[in-house]
Every structure is written in C-alpha cells, then in structure tokens.
C-alpha cells in the first residue's frame, strides 16, 4: 500500500480531532472532581486521555505524519474552541505528535502493538512535560514532581496507549475502517 497520506485519511484525521475536542470538554467534567479529590495528581491520573487524539490517528492510518497531523488538527481545534493556552497549544500538539511519531518512524511504521504504542505515548508525555516544566510552572510543585511524573507515565500507558488500542480495535470491527491500513492488520 502507498505510504503517502491520502485526502480521505486527512479528512478522517480532522474529523477524529474535532470529535476528540468535544469529548475532552466532556472529560473535563471528570477532571474537576478528580482535582478536588487528588489535588495535583488529579490531572496526572487522566493525563493519558489527552494523548488519544495523536495516538488514534497513528493507530488507524499507520503512515508517516499521521500522528503529527492528528495532533496538530486537535491543537488548532482547541485553539479555536478558545483554549487558554493560545498558540501554546500548537507547540504542545507538535511535541505530542512528534513523540508519537518517533518510535513509529524507528520501527518503519510496521509495528503497532501495545509496547510500541506505549513508547509513543510516554515519549509524547515526556516532551510535553518538559514544556510544562519550562512554561507552566511545573517545577513549582517541588518535591511532588517525581510522583506526578510517575502517575503521568502510568496514565499515558493505560489511558493513552491502552484505551487507544481498545477503541481502535472496536472501531475496526464496525467496518468503517476497511480501506485503512489498520484493516490490513499489519504489525500486530
């Protein structure tokens, strides 16, 4: 199969991003009670969910750039939905997309198992966390930082990579993904 990304794939990536934009606003309502309950850990616990939009695009399309494109679309959508991070969200999206893209690139876009996806998710998380450290006062948490980092890692694997794979597989069984690379069952 051709490894250049097609118009169909781009539109679908954009649609998924828009949908995820909406779902995230829904998830924010869970975020708040969680923060109330677990303080700074609250955000970290469901951190992984926010990686899904970069991961799911890559998981379905399985071509170079899919993760980055999906992630950037989500970023621009969030920007237009009035994100408080402004242009920053684009920086975060780029980092996230790159994080997902790197391990897939190294694996020549052939492997998409839980391990590979988890590496992508964790890498994306690390890159964004570094940005948070510089810009959003992550360092201000002081001694809690390593613990938050650990929670974010677990969340990236469970709610990022894990949930993406479960959703991707279920979506595949609906038949709407026939004609995407995921349906060719490459790399599992």
């Amino acid at each position, binding site marked *: 199969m051709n490894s250049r990304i097609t118009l169909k794939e781009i539109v679908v990536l954009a649609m998924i991003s828009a949908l995820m934009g909406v779902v995230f606003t829904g998830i924010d309502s869970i975020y708040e009670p969680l923060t109330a309950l677990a303080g700074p850990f609250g955000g970290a616990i469901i951190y992984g969910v926010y990686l899904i939009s970069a991961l799911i695009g890559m998981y379905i399309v399985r071509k170079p750039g899919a993760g980055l494109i999906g992630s950037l679309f989500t970023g621009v959508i969030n920007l237009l939905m009035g994100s408080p991070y402004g242009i920053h969200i684009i920086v975060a999206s780029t980092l996230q997309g790159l994080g997902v893209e790197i391990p897939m690139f190294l694996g020549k876009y052939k492997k998409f198992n839980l391990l590979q996806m988890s590496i992508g998710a964790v890498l994306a998380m690390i890159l964004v966390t570094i940005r948070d450290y510089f810009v959003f006062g992550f360092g201000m948490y002081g001694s809690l930082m390593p613990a938050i980092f650990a929670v974010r890692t677990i969340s990236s694997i469970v709610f990022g990579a894990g949930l993406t794979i479960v959703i991707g597989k279920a979506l595949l*069984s609906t038949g709407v993904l*026939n004609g995407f690379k995921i349906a060719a069952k490459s790399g599992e």
Partner: protein
Amino acid sequence: MLRIKDLSLAFPEQGKVFNNISFNVRKNTITLLSGNSGVGKSSLLMCIARVIPNIIEGEIKGEIIYKNANIADKGIDSISGSIGYMFQDPDSQLCSFTVEDEIAFGLENLNIDPNQMDDIIDRALDLTGIRHLRMRNLNQLSGGEKQKVALSSILALDPEFIIMDEPTANLDPKSTREIVDLIRKLRDEMGKTILIVEHKVKEIMDIVDDVIEIYEDGALNIEKDEFFKSYLVKSKLPVKSKKSLEENPVIKVENLSFSYDKDREILKDINFSLYEGEMVAIIGPNGAGKSTLTKLLIGLMEPCKGRILIKNKDISEMSPKDIGKSLGLIFQNPEHQFIKMTVEKEMALGLELGGASQEEVSNKVDYYLNLFNLSSQKNMNPFALSQGQKRRLSTASMMINGQPILILDEPTYGQDRENLQELLNLLYDINNRGVSILMITHDMDLVENSCDRYIYLEGGQVKHCGIVDDNFKDNLEREIMAYEGE
C-alpha cells in the same frame, strides 16, 4: 451515455455484493435504479462515480463505459466535473462553512476565474431556487435546504451526467416535490442525464423514463409502466382498522414549550395526549420540531415550560432508566442507539438487562432476527449494515423489550416497500396487544393506512389534529393551505 457490462462487486470482508450486472442509461433521460434494501444500489452508484475502488476498497470486475471509454480502471479525476454525485446524507457532502463558499469550492478546483464566480454561483442557486440562502451558514440550514445546496454545488460544475442516491430521504412532502420538479427540469431544460436511486417510487414515477431493477445476480431493464402498475399493487400497505380509544392517557403533554437558545422558541405551548392502545402520527414539515419533541419525551432535555406525564407520572421525577422501562424511542438516526458490536448482541442487550434467562434470550433473539429479515447479518457489526438494515435493527432491538409505549422517529425512511409492510404488520401486532404507538413520519400513505389519529406540527405549534378517516388527506390539504394562506 453509460453502459454497464457484466459488473460484479465484492467487498474485502463482507464478500460479494452483486454479480454480472448489465444495463444502459440513455442520454437525456431519468433512469430509476430499483431493488431491495441491501442489494447494493448505493455501492453500484459509487462504482460509477469511481468512489469504489478509489476511496472505498472493493473488487470490481466488468466494464463501465461512459461516453465510449471504459472507466472501470480509471481514477476519480477522469470523471470528476463530468459526472456529478449526490448522496443521501445531506450533511456529509458539504465541506465548507457558508452556502456561497460551498458552491465556489468546485469552481475553485477547476481553476475558474474568481471574477466569474459570482455569476455562476447566482445561476446555480437560482436553479434550485435558494438564492436567498446564499450568505447563510451551512449549519443553520434544514435537511431539505442542505440537499438543495449540495445539488447547486454540483450543478455549478455543469456535469452532463448526475447520479443521485435517495436525494429525498428524510425530506417532507413539499421539499420532496420540489426536488422531484428540479430533477425534471434538469432533464427537460438543461439536457442532463440522471441515474437515481429512490424508495419513494410514487413521488417520482411521473418523471422516470427507464427503470432498472437490481438483483443479486443481475439486473433487468423493466418496462416502466408495468413496473409502476405492479409496484402500486404490490406496495399497498396493510390497513389497520381504526379505533377510537380516548380513555386512559399514557402520555400527556401539557403546555410544553422549549428552546435550544434564547433566540428562537422551537416548541410553543404544545398540548396533546396519547391514549392507551392508540397509534398516532405526528406529521409536519422539516424543522417543525418533531424530533425535538421526542427528545423531550424521553427526558434527554428539559422543557422550558409545561410538563410531560407518562402514565400520570411527571417525567422530571423519573430516572432515565425508569423512563426507558415504560417507553421505547427509536431515534431518527438509528446509529445513536447502537451499543453492542454485533447485531445479535445488540438485540439481546435489553433482554439481558431485564434479567431473562439464556435460553429465553436466544430464542427470542432468533425469532426477532428472522422477523426483521436480519438473520444472515447476525454476526455483523451494526454500523456495517445498509441504511435500511440499520433502521430495522434499531426498531427490532426496541420492540423486543416490550415497553408499553413506543415512539418511532421516521421508521420508514430508507425502507423498500416489502420491509415496510413487514414492519407495519409487526407494529399492528404489538398494537393489538395493547402497545401504544407514536409515529413521526413524512409518509402520508402510511398515516392514512395505519394511524388512528394525527397531530400536525408546524413552526413548533400544533396547528391541527384529528382522526384519520377517508377524508384525511383532503382535510389535511385544506388545513395546510389555510395556514399557508394566512
């Protein structure tokens, strides 16, 4: 103009769809493509538009000869601009934000000089009679208006050949007539050739030149008069004897008002009742507020004013689950209620949650699968079904639970007459056993044959209601005329 020769199609997973189809479409005619739900009509149109296999994977064998060239192995760009393709879902064929941008989109792709575009856009909008919508936002249009925009955007490119997949599904009778008139105009005044799939045979039979019937193993060019004659006989809907049962109200709507936002009231002071054992139709133009009403009845949204009683209990005091126990709603879009990943499990869900035994569940599910003509799809994913199959599944999975009240939002759309007859017989059957039914539909034949009463909703108000008798259609016409004349 177009010749299909021994065309076969198979999808990678589902297997073969149709085999050895051959037929011709003559220049400057309207050809109706007919066939049972799920036989592959939509897929065939996609083959002609080169969507299969270019965008959707599928294995095609045979020849598609368009203007003396075989396009069966060519890409989309070989025909884009020359063959226009309009499909059923008005929402998913628009790709910009405003009406004029949408029409301009195709022109831009063909590198037309922007200075000429204004004229072309106006002309394309005039053809469908929607010039007044030119600056409007696509999101704020009704389904019928969106269909007209889609058609205008295709006409702007001036294609010679236009294929249409159920262009009037979901449209009210008036918009349907308008689209049908428009199709006639395309042939008579503009010299276009049209290939159309349409379940509303009665509405378009006057303008059709040729009829082609598709079967799994071939296609037949049928004599059109014969086809229509036998169609009218075969498609007679079963008639239910009318009852008058105005005793125990099961749903009572009192002074109901609702608006999505402050600007516009969608429902204004609605009052009506559904009595036990009745079958009542809610009719009215697109955008009248019918689906909104169902969302209120099921408790998805809260009314701004007034209240809704189900069996004398205010639904604002009931949990969604309790509402679900007494009332089954079949949504306008069947996909909104699919939960499980196979047809069989989807059917079983309600029974399982209700605590039925394994054996009971499997017996009942098999029975209903059979009844709804879905047995061979039982291991398929609900989302992979054809339009009509989905509709039947959502209806079946609600009916199997046996709630005492059933609300159906356009149960007939996308159905062929045979399936429709089956569905009606089933509804009559449960209705006889005491289930009260509220049905939203644009099909006046259906109302005439099956409902005891009707409620006519327009602009968010109950404009008229009454019993359905032999004079129903005349009465309705007179009433509506009276309102339009106001």
